[in-house]
């Protein structure tokens, strides 16, 4: 076993463990932290496959931005996860059997041939930068999907705003113009009260 194979299996084991902990951890903060670990490890595996741009992107975007926000929200919300998770473990036996069966079936269909460590078949020739190629493709051949993706993000933004925006709250402020032109009549109302008898 060469060093690359060892690193691959090492990272994969951490990835599987972290992913499992994401769904089994009782504490949502722990789950989020394990999700960060999973993303980070995934980045490591991609770097091993010489996709260094994707590896950096997942760490910068997911670990750096998305997960920090996520963690922030999870810590702010005081959710009682125990109530939500009631009965969660009772599904475990059936779920585990079904999951194992599916993994076995996929393994039988695809055979051992595809479950090997990806040898670096697609060796990148020296002097070609992965990141630069992705950038070039994105603005030439893939310009149409690229623009569509921006529209998808825009729709996501519109959807988020329309579903959460509950009308602008007017802050209390005074209009100086009205203050200057105010008349005594506007402020004081003289009432005529009939005199009570007896």
């Amino acid at each position: 076993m060469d060093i690359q194979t060892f690193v691959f299996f090492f990272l994969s084991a951490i990835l599987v463990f972290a992913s499992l902990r994401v769904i089994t951890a009782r504490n949502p903060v722990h789950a989020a932290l394990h999700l960060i670990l999973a993303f980070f490890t995934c980045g490591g595996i991609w770097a091993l496959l010489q996709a260094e741009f994707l590896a950096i992107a997942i760490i910068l975007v997911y670990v750096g931005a998305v997960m920090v926000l996520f963690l922030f929200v999870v810590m702010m919300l005081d959710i009682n996860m125990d109530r939500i998770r009631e009965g969660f473990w009772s599904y475990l036996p059936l779920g585990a059997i079904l999951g194992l069966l599916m993994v076995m079936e996929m393994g039988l269909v695809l055979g051992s041939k595809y479950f090997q460590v990806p040898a670096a078949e697609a060796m990148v020739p020296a002097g070609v930068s992965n990141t630069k190629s992705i950038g070039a493709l994105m603005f030439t051949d893939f310009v149409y999907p690229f623009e569509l993706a921006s529209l998808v993000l825009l729709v996501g933004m519109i959807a988020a705003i329309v579903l959460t925006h509950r009308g602008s709250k007017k802050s209390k402020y005074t209009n100086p113009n009205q203050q200057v032109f105010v008349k005594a009549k506007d402020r004081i109302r003289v009432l005529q009260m009939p005199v009570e008898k007896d």
Partner: protein
Amino acid sequence: MFDNFVVPNLLPAAPELFLAAMALFILLVDLVVKDGRRTVIYGLTQLTLLTLIVWRGIPYFRAIFLEQPDAFEALSQITYTFSNMFVIDMMGDLLKLILYMAMSVVLAYSRAYLIEREVMNKGEYYVLALFATLGMMVMISANHFVTIYLGLELLSLALYAMVAMNRDSVASTEAAMKYFVLGALASGLLLYGMSMIYGATGTLEITAVAERLFGGGANRTLLVFGLVFLVSGLAFKLGVVPFHMWIPDVYHGAPTSVTLLIGSAPKLAAFAIVMRLLVSGLFVMVADWQNMLIILSVLSMAVGNLAAIAQTNLKRMLAYSAISHMGFMLLGITTGVVSGDAGNLLNAYSASMFYVIAYVVMTTGAFGMILLMSRAGFEADAIDDFKGLNKRSPWFAAIMLMLMFSMAGVPFFIGFFAKFSVLQAVVAAGYMWLALVAVFFSLIGAFYYLRVVKVMYFDAPVDETPLVAGTNMRLLISANGLAVALLGMFPQVIMSVCAYALLRSL
């Protein structure tokens, strides 16, 4: 690095660009227009769709009614652009034209319903509807796995938001949540299938996938493995058994105007991506996917028609009816090739295309009737709400009668010819048993459509008040009902256009 790059020809994608620009423009206009009824936004949205209808409709008018050969010639061109990611052919062009019409009618029906419900009548509703239209256009014109997926996401995201827009309703929120989670699952299945096929062929471009497969040498196990996931993902999006569970809940829970949108136009786009992925891309695997589709189709007809009988809610009943109709539509696609002989190809696929178009016309009318009956605070979505409709308004009862007869497949409405042409293709392919199963379940299906008719004509009305609806709505829904009857008298017009479109596209 940029040596081989040619700046893409934008002309074939002009309708998409126009629609995207208009949607962005309307989004900005919505910021400055302070109008509670959103008349300006609605007007601009309709203007966009009507412009597209006239723009793309004129060539068809010239070709079909004026019989100008050069118009035919121009329509039957197949053009690729954006590095072969975008294709425009006659099938796509025709489906898009019908899509614009369907969306325009859908929004017109929804107008009064939205005005009565303040919380939904926002400018974003119309903008999201336009983006959903754009997503469907992208799907129809896709020649690349990535564009199919992005179009699908654009459509789905807009729809999830529209279902959830009625925020105060628990049912709508629940429906949106279910739709979102199951839609994400379906997208995952589709993507997994696509990645497997990419692994086997080394390309994401649909026409290139077909070429590699014709060339042979691709790993068959991997292909079949990917195909299973691809078909499952498509089945989810079409809503056929066993991937149908989201349909009844989403149709029922969503506000009726959104149900109308989900139930009509997206079926055209779903048909288009089935054709692009399975027929254009994986035609070599036809024997494999035809068998899968037969199972899906028979199950859908059985479950859809049987479960619809038990429903008391009209929206839910129409949801099960949608499942059965999609199963029927798939029958046509399953019979294109019989034991290696592709003689029945054109016949079968054009029957399916005709079926999908007919279904969109009928379902738009049926949900339109629910919208017509509804008032502020009253949804009119129970079958009992249609009791004695004949006494309240004989004309609209007659329209609903035509729509229900057409959906049931009673002769001389468009639904009959749609069913008939699919059955003809099935029999021509030699699947006698399949045709018998389809007829059997259609007969069962006729029961629940006729029940609606019986309720309208023979039950005493609960609510004696006459219907209140705007003139536009009355005219449009009458036109829709009459279209079901008239197209039933001249079905060959649409049928031959479908056949010609597929002849020139495949």
